[in-house]
């Protein structure tokens, strides 16, 4: 693996956004993901290399999270650093020089305000090369449908953290499947299980953001 990928991955993992960022203190004054990505493109490195560094960094922090060695804030900070690098890829995505793998519409279901997990999934999916449309929390069926209309061919992700709101997924999936039968619908969130996802007609379930990316990748493969 190239030195660049390793360096970018480290900055993602540690949440080092740019030269000015105060965090992490031991990297103060050094380049962050923002500068690294910019320089890499100027030096003619392939945009894919940036994606590679981002994914590696997110994988590493994700592993620490699973082992209780990193917590939600560290994960969010890493995701922010990743986003700073990804911003430099936008022109490539827009010009078509680098193809986004697809569009992913995500939201926390109606009645539910929990958004930490949803935000993480959104950021990791973006890091996985997809365009992400984040509809926020308390997203009604009508809002999901309107967004699918606006983004033909997109996949949809729904997050729920309450047993009282996860039941809202079923109606939304039904409505989506009636109007846009081809749309891939993914569900997740702490109380949701694979069995439940199958029961309500979801196309996929993942307990974590990485799994969500894997399912989306399969669709576009």
């Amino acid at each position, binding site marked *: 693996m190239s030195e660049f990928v390793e360096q970018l991955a480290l900055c993602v993992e540690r*949440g080092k956004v740019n030269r000015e*960022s*105060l*965090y992490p203190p031991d990297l103060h004054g050094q380049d962050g993901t923002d500068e690294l990505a910019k320089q890499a493109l100027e030096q003619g490195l392939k945009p894919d290399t940036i994606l590679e560094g981002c994914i590696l960094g997110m994988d590493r922090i994700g592993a620490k999270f699973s082992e*209780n060695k*990193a*917590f*939600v*804030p*560290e994960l*969010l*900070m890493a995701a*922010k650093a990743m986003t700073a690098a990804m911003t430099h890829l936008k022109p490539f995505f827009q010009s078509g020089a680098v193809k986004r793998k697809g569009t992913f519409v995500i939201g926390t279901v*109606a*009645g539910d*305000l929990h*958004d*930490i997990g949803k*935000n993480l999934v959104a950021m990791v999916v973006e890091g996985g090369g997809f365009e992400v449309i984040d509809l*926020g*929390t*308390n997203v009604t069926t009508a809002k999901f449908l309107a967004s699918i209309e606006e983004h033909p061919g997109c996949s949809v992700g729904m997050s729920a953290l309450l*047993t*009282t709101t996860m039941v809202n997924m079923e109606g939304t999936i039904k409505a989506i499947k009636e109007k846009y039968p081809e749309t891939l619908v993914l569900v997740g969130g702490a*109380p949701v299980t694979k069995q439940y996802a199958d029961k309500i007609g979801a196309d996929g379930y993942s307990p974590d953001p990485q799994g969500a990316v894997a399912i989306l990748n399969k669709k576009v493969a």
Partner: protein
Amino acid sequence: MTSFERLQNRMVGNPVDRPPNFDIMMQFATRHIDKPLRDYYLDHRVLVQANMAMLNDFQLDIVQAISDPYREAFDLGLEVSFPEQSLPISTSPLLREPSDLARLTTVDPVNGRRMHDRLEAIRLFREKVGGCTPIMGWVEGALAEAADLRGVSTLMLDLFERPDWVIELLEFCCEQAILFARAQMAAGADIIGLGDAVASQVSPAWYRLYALPYERRIFQAVKNSGGIARLHICGDTTLILHEMATSGADIVDIDWMVDYQKAAEISDNDGPAICGNFDPVKIMLQGSPEQVREAVINCLSIGGDKNLSAAGCEIPINTPYSNLHAQTAALSEYYSMA
């Protein structure tokens, strides 16, 4: 033995006729009296009626003015909507920009619409059951309140990027919480619960830095007013149990993800009573009465002489009645086994 005597005895490890039932009831209680959820959040008379029904029909040992996280935040200016049959919804943060903090001033709970409503609930509880059943008021912990005002994810990033600003915000939230706690004590509360949900999502080092010092100050104010302090952090708190014990709380709630045996260690000697901790969803909502019985007795047998019985967090709205009755029966059964 009244519920109040039961609690007082149990908290110091003295014998009781049965361990107190301290389940957190909000949505379930509202459904039980067949009222819209919105009324529970906005009308203290409905909240009190629902709690009285819990005493009579499920033998709870507490009445509680807890409802949702947005009492203080609403009075500070957060936009919250109240759909008829669902939880309150806040969709846009009050502190969009860090500079918005300069505009915030604390609100006297007597003048705040939703804080005042909670004070009214406590007064009505006092009239109805004062001295017999413990009356619990509630405040948001400073970290939780900061997250309510700013949005959790944004606040988490602020902790890295503008820690001094976060401290300023926490100081503000702490001051508001103390005002609210004191007002609830003056209205007749016996216990003040403090909810700090997001504290389970940060590292132990950050818990020590950004949550615990404020919990301590709020609880000190509760103690100075003669109240009992109860700490409630939803989620897996395994890594911060021993710190939570130093918050000044007399009762520490333990959510279901925590090994209750481990939690019981903090109760040793002069430590706080622990309260918990079976799974509200897998056991209470989805389990059978026999599973509830087993879980209740299991918690009692490992939680020590001071522990109080409760699910790890709120009792879900659609919990079968038979499961709550199984908990009540198990508490009496446990006494007769002892």
